[in-house]
């Protein structure tokens, strides 16, 4: 096991797969000599050369379109969209073309494509560079959606996404890039569609994603001091969604809390709540409660951003008052 930062783990995951499969190509803005504006792909250009690691113009539609056309015809491209907010500038390519073409042609084409993007807030970038948009992707049939919370998963899930024969939107939470953690040595590949129980407790289930996982974990530790033992589930993959693991934990504990970085409306937690309210109705001992950013664009100033996003304290308070 080596200790890597989340950003190093991303680079390691890409390197592992580019080494293994010569059809893996990587394109994006400033990803070449610059190593990416988040320095999450440092070293790839030097190692794999300007043909396989390629700078693009500021042309998000062309980036995704080119990656799609290449994926349909034999390559396994990785396309970087620098901030997830910019997915909006190429949303037609993603939601209408990448996601639907296999289905519309009844399987004539496969699109083994990974779209990596830096997601979320906490970095004081303001409303146009801080959104948590995993629910945009989740709402589109034909896209797989992954968001790791640890360096090990960053590497292992990214490798799995690259090997997956279908399009995967891979959300890298900006606030996690500097986080360090153990990453298995040698080849490391996880499976898409498996949630992970990060903490086991019998009183309630807290389901979280990406940067909200460490916050949920901290809150759970504090809740233990309050006498509440919480299970924490790291969703990891929104599509495919590991409902079995989640439902099992909810049945066990009788209570569900979601912790979502996204603004409230139509977040992934809403979908999860609706599944649970249908399929575990008789097992629930109390309301399903969602902890989210309020339904506003994210403000820029540090104090505002911190107050808007779910905090350890807010998670703890919400769970505690709801469990009373």
């Amino acid at each position, binding site marked *: 096991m080596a200790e890597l930062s989340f950003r190093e783990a991303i680079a390691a995951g890409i390197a592992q797969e580019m080494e293994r499969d010569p059809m893996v190509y990587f394109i994006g803005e400033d990803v070449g000599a610059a190593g990416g504006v988040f320095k999450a792909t440092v070293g790839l250009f030097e190692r794999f050369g300007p*043909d396989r690691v390629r700078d693009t113009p500021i042309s998000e539609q062309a980036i995704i379109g080119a990656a799609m*056309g290449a994926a*349909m015809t034999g390559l396994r491209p990785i396309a970087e969209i620098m901030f997830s907010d910019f997915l909006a500038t190429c949303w037609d390519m993603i939601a209408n073309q990448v996601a639907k073409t296999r289905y519309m*042609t009844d399987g004539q084409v496969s699109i083994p494509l990974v779209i990596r993007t830096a997601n979320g807030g906490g970095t004081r970038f303001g409303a146009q560079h801080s959104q948590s948009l995993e629910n945009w992707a989740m709402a589109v049939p034909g896209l797989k959606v992954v968001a790791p919370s640890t360096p090990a998963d960053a590497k292992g899930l990214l490798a799995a996404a690259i090997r997956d024969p279908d399009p995967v939107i891979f959300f890298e939470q900006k606030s996690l890039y500097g986080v360090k953690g153990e990453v298995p040595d040698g080849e490391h590949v996880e499976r898409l569609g498996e949630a992970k129980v990060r903490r086991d407790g019998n009183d309630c289930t807290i389901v979280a994603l990406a940067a909200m996982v460490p916050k949920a974990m901290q809150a759970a530790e504090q809740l233990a001091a309050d006498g509440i033992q919480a299970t924490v589930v790291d969703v990891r993959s929104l599509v495919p969604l590991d409902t079995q693991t989640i439902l099992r934990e909810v049945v066990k504990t009788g209570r569900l809390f979601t912790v979502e970085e996204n603004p409230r409306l139509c977040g992934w937690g809403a979908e999860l709540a609706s599944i649970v309210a249908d399929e575990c109705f008789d097992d629930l001992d109390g309301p399903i409660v969602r902890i989210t950013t309020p339904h506003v664009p994210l403000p820029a100033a540090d104090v505002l951003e911190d107050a808007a996003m779910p905090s350890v304290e807010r998670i703890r308070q919400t769970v505690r008052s709801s469990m009373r």
Partner: protein
Amino acid sequence: MSARVEKPPAAEVDRPTRLRLYQLMVELRDFEQRAYELFLENLVRGTSHLALGQEAISAGYAVAMRADDYTFCTYRGHGHTLARGASMAAAMAELLGRGNGMLHGKGGSMHLTDVKHGAMGSYAIVGAHLPIAAGAAWSAQVRKSGQVAVCFFGDGTTNIGAFHEALNLAVIWKLPVVFVCENNQYMEYTPIRSVTAVEHPAADRASAYGLEPILVDGNDADVMYETARQTIDTARTGGGPSLVEALTYRHGGHSRADPAKYRPDAEVREWLSRDPVTRYRERLLAAGIGEAEVNEIETRAQQKVDAATEEARKGAPAAVDGIERQVWSDGGAAWRN
């Protein structure tokens, strides 16, 4: 500052190629006409966009392409797809929403695709397939396969952002892709000149990408064939992309719902007099090809369309269990366990 229409090619197109061009044009013409008849019979379920009058472009390019080259086209893509060798019966059945359709009913008229024949899809959102075609060309380039991607689109498409992004990317990466603008003078119901800053929406913009303007008579199959040969050759030999503007006209409305009343009679008459099919027929006769041979091509085309129609009509309605198939490469549609 306006591009000029190029003269017909100096070199004569050889006789077998000409016969092939004519055959293809007649087949595409007959297919579209049949599609229209079936629509009047209320058998075509969804919308459809016919390319009646634009056959010289699809035929010219298809004949010049290598079997493994890629075609990307729009919702007005029956002709481009069939010209690559796709099954006419499967295309017709798709229009009728039948289970024996090319996409088993899941795509419909606007999305005909036959990857086996290099027909990489019909895309229904204006402009989207230009970057995708560039991507297929990028793939061919790095795989060193020698394949070329040809991407067809309308005049109206030149005003959308994806056009601009695709052209720039193709040029800087020197991709083996040919962009062919079929300037049929109209978007849906709006004349292109009323919403475009230049007279020739594609040719007058070539220089913005460091390309030569190529403006050609899209109703002349010889011209189109020669243009295709040259631009494909450029792409295949590492010369990078071209942007072609082919002047043409659709004989009917934009889609099945449109009687095309917004077009001046004189304009329609003028363009009908330049019908690529009748014009080419005359040229063949003038070049000494016998009427019998020409007639036979026409008869065979009719028979082909008849047979395709019959086969399509025999198809059962699309199978409902297809709804939850082929979202993913495992053949299924599961989003959860």
